[in-house]
């Protein structure tokens, strides 16, 4: 099976985020990491290749720093990488990001395309589904298991409140992968070494821009959300906080 995995670089989970001066985005001086579900998507692609053979290709769109995500994926076992590189890609909405991917892979035939179910930064949860529609492929979202079947694949979708559902579907197909579908592997030293010789293709904005249109939605303003609830803040040395909490548990909340 030939599998494409879309991997986005996002600010690290614990990174202290600050607004930029114009209030349109965060300040860029933070550490980045791979979007969590995308790491699971890569792992799943590598496992599928392990079972059925084939090729795993990773793709990202973003500035030069995003290459790190591709390097890590190659070190974990991906065969080659595609980087839509440039700042112009960064501000594209999900619709145009998907269009850029579709344009960059138009000469290839993938049996499966994986994306994460949503990004940890913007969290639109759309790029994979949009890509499926642009390519005319069937799709399924929030996937927790993938098996090859006679005419295609059988996947397990997560539904709300602890429910699941199996879906049979033909290939080629697009799947959005949920965190926790598998256990992640670490890159090995030998993998890191081998990664240096694996192909990494760069695609410039001009090469795909004819396939793009203007953004259809605009982020007008980014801000710290207003609090709606009255919150009491407890401060002081831990022992004192513990005493205050127990006093509340006992006399206000009456749970002990």
């Amino acid at each position, binding site marked *: 099976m030939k599998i494409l995995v879309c991997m986005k670089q996002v600010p690290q989970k614990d990174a202290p985020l600050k607004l930029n001066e114009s209030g349109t985005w965060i300040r860029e001086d933070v550490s980045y990491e791979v979007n969590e579900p995308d790491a699971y998507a890569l792992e799943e692609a590598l496992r599928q290749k392990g079972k059925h053979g084939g090729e795993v290709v990773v793709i990202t769109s973003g500035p030069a720093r995003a290459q790190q995500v591709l390097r890590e994926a190659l070190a974990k076992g991906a065969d080659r990488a595609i980087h839509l590189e440039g700042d112009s890609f960064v501000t594209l909405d999900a619709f145009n990001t998907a269009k850029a991917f579709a344009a960059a892979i138009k000469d290839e035939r993938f049996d499966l395309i994986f994306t994460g179910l949503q990004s940890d930064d913007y969290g639109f949860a759309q790029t994979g589904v949009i890509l499926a529609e642009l390519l005319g492929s069937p799709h399924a979202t929030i996937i927790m298991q993938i098996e090859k079947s006679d005419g295609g694949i059988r996947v397990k979708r997560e539904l709300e409140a602890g429910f699941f559902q199996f879906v049979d579907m033909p290939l080629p197909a697009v799947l959005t992968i949920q965190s926790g579908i598998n256990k992640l592997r670490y890159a090995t030293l030998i993998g890191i070494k081998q990664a240096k010789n694996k192909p990494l293709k760069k695609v410039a904005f001009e090469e795909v821009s004819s396939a793009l249109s203007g953004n259809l939605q605009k982020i007008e303003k980014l801000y710290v959300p207003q609090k709606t609830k009255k919150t009491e803040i407890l401060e002081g040395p831990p022992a004192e906080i513990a005493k205050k*909490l127990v006093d509340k548990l006992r006399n206000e909340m009456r749970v002990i």
Partner: protein
Amino acid sequence: MAKKNGPKMADTILVVVEQREGKLNRVSGETLAGAQAIANQTGWTLEAAVVGSGVGDIASELAAKRVAKVYDLESVKLEPYTPDGFVAALRQFIEQKQPRLVLMPHTYQVRDFAPKLATALNRALISDAIGYKYEGGKLLFTRQMFQGKFAADVSFVGEPPYFATFQNGAFRGDQVEAGSSAAPVETVTVDVPDGAVRNKPEAPFKEAKQAVDLTQAEIIVAVGRGIKEQKNIDLAKQLADALGGEIAASRPICDSGWLPMDRQVGSSGQTVAPKLYLALGISGAIQHVVGMKGARTIIAVNKDGEAPIFEIADVAVVGNLFDIVPPLIEEVKKAKGA
């Protein structure tokens, strides 16, 4: 886009509700309440649609609300739900009616088909909104960004129809206004072409029986990724034991296998409403919060003073849980022994 003949829905808001097994789900009611509020402010006409096979009862239920009209989009190929089937049905309908705004609840089902629907119509979808603003004739949708650390106001660019989905709890479902008389219901038989539906879904099921029922717990101590290592879970367990409560967790803890899946709280886990919910090292992502915001009292311990969990906490302890929890266990034991 090809405009067909027939009545247009200029300046109309169309709410597409979600039904399962003949029942309207709760978030659909919330979205309807939100749509009524937008209609009040903008003066736009509000209509509603339900999609499925034999869902006339839901259409009648909707017709009792304050809406101008209800559409019942019917085809045997719409049961069970598939993204191909729903997009085929709604695409035809929306192309013909040209509403200005299409609103849906941000459920797993809607996130499965709505981006495809918007793309098929060459339009944008603002997903997962938690509210809206109508300022100077411009409609903005507010959504969380960076896992709730920030909020953004997002606007549509270009031509309608515009698509937006509302998150669980964005509006109060019990505030849906009833209509003064029943709205007319139009049944539309939609044509889903043979072969259009490619996925073959099976019936939803639940994994192995739940060993614990957190919904009945009065006290819950929940741990998140701030607990750092599997061996530290024990610390939280000691606190839960001292308080006589149950231990629960955010999703990453269960994904890692540190606690079983049936201890997970949130949109893909259990929804709980204890007297006390004590959150240790949980950031407060919306998918977690929807599962616990009904708690009577929420105490959160987090080392990041800006963690979103503090927005819904009654008591905030900004600090390292490894400093706070051990003396807390001792104090609780002392208080209980006394």
